[in-house]
């Protein structure tokens, strides 16, 4: 008689259905004295495998799952790094060994340059774009030069004349060189707003 093991489960050579053996194991009645499987080598073999499977499953489900430390902070840091990865500027190759390459995020450079501009009294830096200059158009024909374009807000009452803008340029050039190692070929500044300091006694 042909038996479809697909529709009716898997029958052991002794005729016992594997599913029935599993149910007995789960119910705790498998292998009782006098039972068929106590003396049946096929059932005993199958039982040992089922017991191993059940124990393994229980161990895996009981294993504690520890949340990695600082997970939220690490995810947010990864997201921020993802954003800073979009535009990269080449750094000068001086000091690098053959085969080495160094690049830096444009946003990271912009933060440093804005911070430098903010150090000038009465100046608040806003947007800052940094573009690499082709070595063929660099003052010395070497890599490591950039063009900077920065927008500023100036405190009302301060003349946005050459003195203030020259101070901002000096600060930007010095920061690019000392903190990053880049040289600024061109620094375009655009004063786009004024702001007023609170009067004495005013919050």
């Amino acid at each position, binding site marked *: 008689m042909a038996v479809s093991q697909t529709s009716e489960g898997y029958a052991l050579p002794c005729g016992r259905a594997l599913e029935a053996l599993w149910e007995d194991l789960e119910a705790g009645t498998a292998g009782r004295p006098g039972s068929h499987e106590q003396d049946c080598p096929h059932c005993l073999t199958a039982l040992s495998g089922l017991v191993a499977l059940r*124990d393994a499953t229980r*161990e895996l489900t009981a294993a504690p799952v520890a949340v990695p430390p600082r997970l939220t902070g690490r995810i947010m840091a990864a997201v921020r*790094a993802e954003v800073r990865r979009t535009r990269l500027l080449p750094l000068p190759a001086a000091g690098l060994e053959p085969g080495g*390459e*160094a690049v830096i995020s444009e946003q*990271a450079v912009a933060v440093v340059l804005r911070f430098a501009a903010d150090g000038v009294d009465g100046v608040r830096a806003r947007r800052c774009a940094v573009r690499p200059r082709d070595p063929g158009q660099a003052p010395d024909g070497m890599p490591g030069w950039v063009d900077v374009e920065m927008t500023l807000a100036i405190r009302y009452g301060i003349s946005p004349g050459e003195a203030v803008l020259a101070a901002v340029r000096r600060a930007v050039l010095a920061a690019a060189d000392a903190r990053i190692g880049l040289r600024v070929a061109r620094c375009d500044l655009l004063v786009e707003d004024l702001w007023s300091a609170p009067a004495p006694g005013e919050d």
Partner: protein
Amino acid sequence: MGTAASGRPASETVIAREVVAAIGAHAGAVTPGVIRLETSVGGLLTGLGRSARYRIAGITPAPVTGASATVSSGQASLQIEIAVAADRPAAETAAAVQRSVARAVTAGTGLRVTGVRVVILDIVLDRRKAGRRPPERPAERASWADGGAWREELAAADRASGAGGSAGTSGGPGDSRAEVCAAVLRAVRSVPGLQPASPVRPERARWMPWDPAGLAVGLDDGGLEVQLAASRLPLPPLLDQAAAAIRQATARTAWGARPHRLVIAALDAGALAVPVAANP
């Protein structure tokens, strides 16, 4: 590794790119001027999955956050992504990282480093607000000693069957795969600093009727391959010792004359343990 002078088949050794990346990541993290290693979202998720996978195997893998590597024909190239301090030129820090990573990888693996690409993703203006932390370390370190019970049981079984000698110097396992596998595991365990890189941790595999470390050994007609985890550096002397021990252990078997392939698949975090105080 080349062919032995005795004419025996060569033992090929492979160092996984994650191992190379971990060494590079650590070297980059401890370079003066480096605040932290940066990683992408994809890299973070991959790292978490990798960490979980190896924890199951009883290994605390050295972190590869912020580093990636390619390895081919005895050469390696790496990329390191970092945040640096603003108190020195970022270009100088990048050059220092490049030199440090290249030196560490060559010293630790014997691979020639053809290039290191350093990517600076952030400049930290105020270190006090940087949240600087030392290179990532596992909060809970899985102990390799977990495998000790298995070793004792294995040794006891060897003694009972009369099949085993001292580790790595088996008097001659039979040609059955189980016996050869046991001999290879003994040979690997005879090398301090090496461990079979089994995907299953022994205490979670008590239901297995065989040593779960055997899952790290592959035997077929084409040869023998062993997945290994290292807990110390440099790797070349460990691989040389393991290759010799495995050759000796399998000399009288069918796998004695077949090619051997040793793969350093994981590096335990303990291999990179250095005083954090060394960081500026």
